[in-house]
C-alpha cells in the first residue's frame, strides 16, 4: 500500500492559519497547535510558510537520536511521536537537534511537544486536522502517486543542510521548473506597443 504523508506547498499558503486553528481542535492536545504559520518577511511580501514535523527518515529522527531517555518513539510506519510524558525530562536536546525547528517546549508542562501526524486520526484513515482544514491545500495529505496525478509542482523529500542531507517522510513542494507563461516577454511586447522602448517605465514600487 502506498504511503500516505503530508505535502507542504508554501506557494499556495495564504497565511489564514486554519491549520493552527484546526490543530488545536485535536482531542489529544486541545488548545495547543503543533503547526506554525510564519510570514517569511512581512516587510517585503505577504508570503507565508506553514511548518509541520517533517518526520525525518534518514538519518532517522535526529530529535529521537539525541533524546537521553528515549522519550521520543517512532512507530513502525515511521511516524515520529511527541515525547512520552512519562519519560521526558525536559532537557530540550530535541529542540536544538531538530534541523527544521519543529519541537516546541512547553515551559509550564516541562514537556516537549510536536506534531505526530495526527496519529489518532491517520491511524483511523482520516486526514490530519491541518490538511483536512487547509482551504488551499497548501497542506495536502495523500500518497505520492496521487499527488503527481492531481497537482502541479515538484515534491522533494530531501533537504540539504550543508553537506548533510536529510530525507523526510513529509514532502515540500517546489515550483515547476519551466515557467508556463513568459510574462516578461508579454510585457516587453506590450511596452513596444504603448510607444515605450528600452527602459522599463514602471515605477520602482510596482513589485
Amino acid at each position, binding site marked *: 500500500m502506498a504511503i500516505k504523508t503530508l505535502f507542504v506547498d508554501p*506557494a*499556495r499558503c*495564504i*497565511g*489564514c*492559519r*486554519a491549520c*493552527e*486553528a*484546526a490543530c*488545536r*481542535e485535536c*482531542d489529544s492536545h*486541545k*488548545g*495547543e*497547535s503543533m503547526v*506554525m504559520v*510564519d*510570514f517569511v518577511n*512581512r*516587510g*517585503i*511580501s*505577504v*508570503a*507565508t510558510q506553514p511548518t509541520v514535523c517533517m518526520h525525518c527518515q534518514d538519518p532517522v529522527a535526529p530529535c529521537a537520536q539525541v533524546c537521553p531517555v528515549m522519550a521520543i518513539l517512532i512507530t513502525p510506519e515511521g511516524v515520529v511521536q511527541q515525547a512520552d510524558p512519562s519519560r521526558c525530562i525536559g532537557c530540550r536536546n530535541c529542540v536544538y537537534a531538530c534541523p527544521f525547528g519543529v519541537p*516546541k*517546549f*512547553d515551559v*509550564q508542562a516541562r514537556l516537549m*511537544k510536536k506534531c505526530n501526524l495526527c496519529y489518532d486520526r491517520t491511524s483511523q484513515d482520516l*486526514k490530519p486536522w491541518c490538511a*483536512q*482544514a*487547509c*482551504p*488551499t*491545500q497548501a497542506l495536502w495529505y495523500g500518497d505520492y502517486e496521487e499527488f503527481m496525478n*492531481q*497537482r*502541479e509542482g515538484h515534491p522533494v523529500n530531501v533537504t540539504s543542510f550543508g553537506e548533510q542531507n536529510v530525507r523526510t517522510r513529509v514532502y515540500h513542494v517546489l515550483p515547476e521548473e519551466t515557467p*508556463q*507563461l513568459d*510574462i516578461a516577454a*508579454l*510585457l516587453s*511586447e*506590450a*511596452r513596444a*506597443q*504603448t510607444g*515605450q522602448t528600452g527602459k522599463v*517605465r*514602471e*515605477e520602482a*514600487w*510596482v*513589485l
Partner: protein
Amino acid sequence: MTINKDFFSPGRDFNYDFQSAGRPATGWSSADRVPELLVPTHCCFCGVQCGMYLKVADGKVIGVEARDFPHNRGSLCPKGVVAYQQVEHPDRLRTPLIRRGGKGSQLEPASWNEALDYIVSRWKQIQGEHGRDAVAIYSGSSMTNEKCYIMGKFARVGLRTRNIDYNGRLCMSSSAVAYARAFGVDRAPLPMTDIPLTQCMLAVGVNIAECFPIVMQWIWRARDKGACLIVIDPRETPLARTADLWLPVRPGTDEAVINALLRQVIVDGLVDEAYLRERTTGWDKVREAVEPFTPEVAERLSGVPAERIVAAARLYGGAAISLIMHGKGIEHSSHGVDTCLACVNLALARGQVGKPGGGTMMITGQGNGQGGREVGQKANQLPGYRHIDVPEDREYIAKVWGVPADELPWEGAAAPEMIHLMADGEIRSCLIACSNLMVSLPENQVVKRALQRLDPLIVVDFFLSETAELADVVLPGTVWCEDEGTTTNLEGRVIKINRAADPPGEARPDWEIICELAKRLGRGEFFAYQSVLDIWNEYRLASKGGVSDYYGITWEKIDEQGGVFWPCPSEDHPGTPRLFTERFGHPDGRARMFPIPYRPPAEEPGDGYPFRLTTGRVVYHYLTGNQTRRLGFLNSQAPEPWVEIHPQAAARLGIVTDEIVRVRTPRNSMELKALVVPTIRPDTLFIPYHYGHEHAVNQLTNPAVEPNVKIPEYKACAATVEKLAAPVQPAGLNGVVTNFTPENAPKMFPYTVGETKAPSEKDAKAF
C-alpha cells in the same frame, strides 16, 4: 493582509508559546468528551457556507468535524473551525434586557412579557400618532432564508410599514442590480466547482484568499490545469502574490482599467462577434463608449502601468474560456453598479457568459447574502425577487399572505437612507435584527446620533453588539446551530442548516420572537407557524413563478442532492447549477450591454489629504466582528485594527512599523498602529473594518452612496496619515477634491428619500 502576532505584542515568541493563541471562552474542559452525535450542517460565516459536522454530547456542542460537501470538500477556514465556540460562550444574551429608567439608565434583565408588551404598546402609540411608517425594521442577511422571509412579511403585514431594509445594501447590492440589469437574473451564473474549467481568471476587487479562503482550492485547481491569473487590486493580496499579473489600481478607478481592457480586446480582434450578435443587445454603444480608454488614458486615471493593461487584455482575450470574479472592491463604490456592468461587458464581448467555467461570477460576502436578497426584506422587493411596484407581483404575494393587495405598503427607504429618516424624526422606532450599524455604516457618529433619537430602539442579537449597547430593549436570539432552516450560498446553492443544541437561558429563535410580536399586534393569524418547515413551505409558494423560484426545493431534496440551485420550479426539477447556457433572463433572452463612462469616486485626494483610504476584511474576522472578536483564537490573531502604508510614504513622513499614528479624513480622525509594507500602493492606506468604538474605521469613511442602490463608498475616500506629535489640523475640507456634493448629486447623499424615483432608478429596481 494579516500579520504576525508579534505586531500586537512585540517581543513575544508565539511559535513556542502555547498560551498565546487564545482560548475558547469556556476553556477546553470538554476536550476528553466523546461526541454522541455528529450533526451535519454548514458554517455560519461567509457566503461560501462550507459543510461541517458539529460534535454534540449531552445536548451541548463540543467541537467540529470535517464534512465532505461538494463545494468545500471537507476544508474549513479558521473562522469555520472555531465557529462552534459561540454556542456556549459566556457573553451570550440569555434574557431580554430593557432600560426601565429611559435613555441613560442601565440595561436590566426583564421577562419576555415585559419586554414584548413594552415594545408593542410603544409601537401602537407611535403608529397611532405618527403613522405606520414611523416604525421601521432593519434586518440582516446572516440568518436563514426563513428568518429573512419572516422579517419582510412582518414589516408588510405585521407592522404594515413601508420602511424595511437590510444590511445586504452594504454588501453586494451593486452586483445584484448590475446582474439584474444585464442578465435579468441576479445570481452567480455558475457553481464554484466550475472554476477549474477556466483558462484565465481575472479577479477584480476581490481578496479571495482572505475573505473566501475555501474558494482558493478551486482557483488552485484551475492553476494546476494551466489557467493564468490576473488580479486588479490596490494591495498585493495573497491571491495577487501568486498571480501572473497584478494590476495595482487606485481605489475607486477600476472602471477605467476594465474599459481599457475591453478596448484592447477590440483592438486585438478578440471579440466574439457572433455571440454578441445572437445573444446581446447594446454592443455598438459599448464599443463606442470604450474607444477613448486607451491604455495611456487608463494609466493616467487608475495608476496601472499601460503595458500591464495591454498584457492583461492579451492574456484574458486570448483564453478560450475566461472567468471574471469580482467582489466588494468594486461594489463598495459610488459607481459600483457601473463597474460591475463594465466587467459584464468585457465577459460578454468575449462571448463567455453561459459557458461552463466562463463568464462573470460575483463573490457574495455575507453568509446568506444571496438568499437574504431574494426573500423580500429589501425596501423595494417582495419574496421571489418580486417587485413591490409591480401590480401582478403585489396581487400574488397578497394572495399568498391572505391580505388585500391594496393594504401592502409601497417601497420604503434604503438602509443608509433610514439613518437620515431616524435623525429627522420620521422613523421613531426601529427593530434591528442581525445587524451592527455602529460598526457597519459609514460616518458612524451620524449613525449614533440617529439611533439615539429612536424611542425605543430594539435590537435582536445573541451577543451585546456595539449597536445593542445603544438599544432600549435587547432581545436574545439564537446562533445559527440552535435553529434549523436553509441558506443560499454565493453560487445560488440552497443548503440546509440543522439544529445541534438548544438556545441558552430564555433565548428564542428570531422567527418565534417575530411571530410573538405579530400576535401581540393583533396580526397573529398571519403568523401561525408551528415550525420552521411551515415558514419554508410558505416561502416556496411565495417564490413560485418568481425569478428566484424555490418552489421545487424541499428539505429532502437538499439532503439528497448536496444542495439545490435555484431556480427550481417544480418538485421533479433538479435545480439549475449553470445559468444562461442558452438564454438570459430578459424576455427577449438576450443580455443587455450598457456603455459605462468613467466616474471618479465622490471624494479624491487633495493638498491636506494626499492619500486614498480603503477598507476591507482580514481572514480572522467576519463583518462587524461581533461574533469573531469574541472567539479566542480569532481575536488573538487580530485583536485591533492597523493601517497599512507603503515604505516610500512612511519614509517621507518618518513613520515606522508599530508606531501609533493618526489617520484623518474630512470627517474624523482615529489613532492606530502603522504597518509599513510594500504590498500596497504608495498613495493608498488600508484599514480593516471589523472593529467597534474608537477602533471603527467607519468614523472616517465617506457617506456618499451609489445613487441607485445606495451602497456606501467604503472603498475610497481622501485621507491623511500623520505622527501623533503632528499639530492638530483645523477641521474642514483642506484641499480635498470633492467630485460630487449633496448639491450637485443629491441621490448620492441619502438625504432625500424614497418619494421621487427617476425612471432610471425604477429600471434598476425592476428585478
